[in-house]
């Protein structure tokens, strides 16, 4: 098995405090996992805010340098990429998708600009017709077409469409790995499933591996092949998604699993009422 991405005991700490009270905040601790190059998958990192999942994403993308450990992409150490051409080659293979589609695009720039400039930069295309064809091909993969996008500004499209365009842009260089940091938390429930289904199509049809970062356990269960659960920078539980999310073995992952409200009024109400009872008895004890 050749590794697409390999993380070995990766850690990242930030200095906190002033001159006299120096401290360290360990955002990510001893994180190791390997993604197979031959077997595309959806690898999910689940955690609350502050669990270190975004720091992990930034380190994989090369935006952040690990303070310990090493990240190898296709056998090459990510932190040692120096030259402009190596950097570009790496970026073509590893593409990001961000959380808020409304903020990812400049409101004063037409959306096709992002597609065209990505095609120019990574594919080295010059002719107008070639650039158009590359943009259109990528948009077709996400269920849009260049005719729908050309000349449009971000305020003219819905959040779901913008997020699809973000995915299309990421597809242009022909990436092997897409790092999607909370891609559905800003779009509403009905569009959420269309984005998530799109990831599945990318994995199956284009052979792209996706690192899906989320706090939403129900979509994680729906699409993931493997999952890791992070808490305060550490991996609490890792493994096959159905097993980990269906039957979590650690206390924290169980709490996280139980925090997901079922889409069923009878069961959801029971959970809320139980919590209400606990709240009230807790308050009564505190007063007595």
């Amino acid at each position, binding site marked *: 098995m050749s590794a697409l991405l390999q993380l070995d005991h990766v850690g990242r700490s930030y200095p906190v405090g002033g001159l006299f009270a120096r401290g360290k905040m360990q955002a990510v601790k001893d994180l190791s996992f390997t993604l197979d190059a031959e077997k595309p998958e959806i690898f999910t990192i689940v955690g609350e805010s502050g669990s270190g999942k975004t720091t992990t994403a930034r380190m994989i993308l090369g935006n952040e340098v690990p303070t310990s450990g090493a990240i190898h992409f296709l056998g090459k150490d990510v932190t040692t990429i120096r030259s402009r051409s190596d950097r570009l080659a790496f970026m073509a293979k590893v593409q990001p998708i961000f959380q808020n589609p409304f903020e990812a695009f400049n409101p004063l720039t037409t959306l096709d600009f992002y597609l065209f400039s990505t095609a120019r930069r990574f594919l080295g295309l010059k002719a107008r017709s070639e650039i158009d064809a590359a943009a259109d091909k990528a948009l077709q993969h996400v269920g849009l077409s260049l005719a729908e996008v050309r000349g449009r500004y971000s305020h003219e499209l819905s959040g779901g469409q913008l997020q699809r365009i973000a995915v299309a842009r990421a597809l242009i260089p022909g990436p092997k790995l897409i790092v999607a940091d909370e891609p559905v938390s800003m779009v509403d*429930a*009905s569009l959420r*499933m269309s984005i998530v289904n799109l990831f599945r199509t990318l994995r199956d049809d284009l052979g792209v591996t996706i690192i899906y970062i989320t706090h939403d356990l129900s979509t994680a*269960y729906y699409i993931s092949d493997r999952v890791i659960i992070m808490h305060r920078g550490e991996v609490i539980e890792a493994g096959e998604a159905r097993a980990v999310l269906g039957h979590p073995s650690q206390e924290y992952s169980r709490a*996280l*699993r139980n925090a*997901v409200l079922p*889409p069923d009024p009878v069961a959801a109400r029971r*959970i809320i009422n139980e919590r209400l009872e606990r709240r009230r008895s807790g308050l009564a004890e505190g007063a007595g």
Partner: protein
Amino acid sequence: MQVEVKPETLAAPAEPVLRVENLKAYYQMNYFGVSREVRAVDDITLTIHRNEIYGIAGESSSGKSSLIKTIAGAIRPPLRVVSGSVRFDFGGRTLDVYDDPQAMKAARWRHLSYVMQGSMNVLNPVRRVKHAFHDFAFRHMGLSPSAFRARVEAHLEQIGLDPQVLEAYPHQLSGGMRQRLAIGLATVCEPEFIIADEPTTALDVLVQQDVLALIKDVQSRLGSSIIFVTHDMTVHAAIADRIGIIYAGRLVEEGPAQAMFARPQHPYTAHLIASLPRIGDTTRRQSLPGKPPNLADPPSGCRFHPRCPLAITKCETESPPLEPRGEGRVACWRAGEVAAA
């Protein structure tokens, strides 16, 4: 003679607290001689009873936030009320939101309060939390400063916060604590009616259940009514007594939460519920084809027809009225066939 009152008969006579009748509120814009009208709230009629939690669901830009802003009387141009009325009934006194601004001002916070979207926006980052309570609630309560402080502290303990937070600055508190504070601010005057816009959207999963339980707790203790908006159907399932589904500025279905989840009557509702992912189930979820309608130029007839799997020719030309059906109301020409599809 002693008359025994059954619990059911106590719950049954539901007094309406809020009546919204044929409400239309449009964003009317006029730029360089070109006028544009966005029909965000289009002919909505609904009633909310005492001691009831009413949830409004719908996708983004469906007009759900415009609706509750209009109900709260918190609108500013270009959003204008074109026709219809919003009436509250507080202790036998009827209050028309758009007829009597003076009475509305007096009733605000005392009888009617608002939990805003995103707890971060409520608290001033450079002032201590106690000032927020003072600014919002002091003049509505008619208490001396020390009695007011004691009341606020007691109230904070009720909602599970240490009274010490009054001396803190907002950045020293976690997101969950700030959301609790936002709820505390809205409920310190014990209002009869609470309006909440996306009360749990920005919160972590572990905090969400706590905040929902808190809302439910405060509501049942005060016996007040709540109208809240969120696109998250699981939140509706957890606390709403009745749910209203908004699509393109119109109420397309309304009914008790359990009945709606068990037997949705409108194809849009059926889609919303069917597309919810559940842990333990990986059958493929379908997403809705097409894109959300443009409210400046909504589709003819039933506004859902371009995306509807059940659409017939009639749907393209005639807009279905919202009519009682089953335990609720629904606006669909083929409502009877939804469950079968």
